[in-house]
């Protein structure tokens, strides 16, 4: 039985046992290669749910962006490894009650980044996708190309260390534990080999692309301040234009706001219309936090997020002697 069939079965069971009022999953999107979030309120709709590499949306975002809609309701949710960590973080931060959610883990081998595909096909419409082990064949009306899976996967997936949920009630298969991933170090080494001036040149080039649409912020399940610092106008922290200093500051501060809270689901990078490598900064911060404080976002369900805690005897070599 494939994952989609198992997911549908699980949803039906949850509704017939009256364990949930609503279930969040994915369904077929209106275009090929796309999926869209699905809210199921009745077990009879279970057959609309799907799970495959198109299902990139991190559904935990619905708990923090508009939490009122779930007030008093028991919510079932299908989660990949990263989505589960988002949810764990939300539970840790008291945004979601553990007793009110039924977490259904799905085994994930990475999701597709539509932008990468569009780049490879030159924007031509893809009508059919066939996965064959490590290669993916894309077909359209007048073309067919075969790519390596790594060429179309979201960059967050290429750097993933927690493919499967660490916290769940039901898991559709065998949940894998943490895996090693050398791509993380590689991505950082590439930048760290540069001189300071070259790094700034790189940063400037990358963030000059930003049009300040805030899609990255809006899609982020960890970004849920009722008023974001970029929207404040007294004082106005960030200028309203796309001046590169403003965009760099926006991205650095957003990165610090989600420091120790970012689960690297890659939703921001997939949402970015300008194809900025947003995850690189998050990766840097996550690795720094892991190295210094030994913590990874969305793993611990108890206690407080890492940046809200401290130990008295921490290393402080960066403080002037």
């Amino acid at each position, binding site marked *: 039985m494939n994952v989609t069939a198992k997911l549908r079965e699980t949803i039906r069971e949850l509704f017939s046992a009256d364990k949930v009022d609503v279930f969040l999953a994915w369904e077929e999107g209106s275009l090929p290669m796309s999926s869209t979030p699905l809210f199921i309120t009745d077990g009879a709709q279970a057959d609309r749910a799907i799970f495959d590499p198109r299902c990139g949306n991190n559904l935990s975002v619905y708990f923090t962006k508009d939490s009122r809609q779930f007030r008093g309701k028991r919510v079932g949710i299908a989660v990949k490894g990263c989505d589960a960590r988002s949810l764990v973080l939300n539970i840790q931060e008291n945004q979601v009650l553990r007793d009110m959610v039924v977490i259904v883990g799905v085994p994930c081998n990475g999701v597709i980044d539509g932008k990468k595909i569009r780049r490879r096909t030159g924007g031509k419409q893809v009508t059919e996708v066939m996965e064959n082990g490590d290669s993916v064949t894309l077909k359209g009306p007048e073309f067919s190309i075969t790519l390596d899976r790594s060429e179309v996967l979201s960059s967050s997936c290429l750097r993933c260390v927690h493919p499967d949920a660490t916290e769940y009630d039901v898991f559709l298969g065998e949940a894998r534990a943490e895996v090693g991933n050398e791509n993380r170090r590689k991505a950082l080494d590439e*930048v*760290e080999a*540069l001189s*300071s*001036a*070259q*790094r*700034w*040149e*790189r*940063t*400037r080039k990358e963030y000059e692309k930003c049009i300040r649409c805030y899609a990255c912020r809006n899609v982020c399940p960890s970004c849920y301040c009722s008023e974001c*610092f970029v929207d404040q106008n007294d004082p106005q*922290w960030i*200028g309203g234009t796309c*001046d590169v*200093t*403003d965009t*760099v*500051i926006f991205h*650095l*501060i957003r*990165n*610090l706001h989600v*420091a120790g809270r970012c689960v690297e689901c890659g939703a921001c990078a997939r949402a970015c219309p300008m194809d900025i490598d947003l995850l690189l*900064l998050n990766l*840097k*911060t996550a690795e*720094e*936090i892991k190295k*210094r*404080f030994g913590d990874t976002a969305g793993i611990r369900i108890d206690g407080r997020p*890492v*940046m*809200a*805690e*401290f*130990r*008295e005897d*921490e*290393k*402080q070599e*960066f*403080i*002037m002697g």
Partner: protein
Amino acid sequence: MSEWQPRILAILCNWCSYAGADLAGVSRIQYPPNIRVVRVPCSGRVDPLFILKSLQAGFDGVLVSGCHPGDCHYISGNYVARRRFAILKPLLEFVGIEPDRVQFSWISAGEGERFATVVTKVVEDVRKLGPSKRIVKKA
């Protein structure tokens, strides 16, 4: 044209470092006049945004100073700040902002001499780097 002088913003906590600066003043200890002081209630009040905004506004360097660990007036403000600065500094370095432009120190109310030493060191470091150009917003 006169020689370029670095301009450095010093964000000092009310209870220790600001008093330390005051002591340096009343003790007539000499230190370079390149700093402008902003007094904050606690180093825990210092948002990394303040630091980046100062650099964007054209300051050549930023010094943040608070009470020594264990001496915070609010018990734990400087511990939380320390964690924040611990990740801010490598992040700035990563994106290509010279690390010496943003510095942190602990200065108590009794360390006027130390305040002068720290300021001298920061001014020297920033002078070596030259005028800040990277994250400065052009008018």
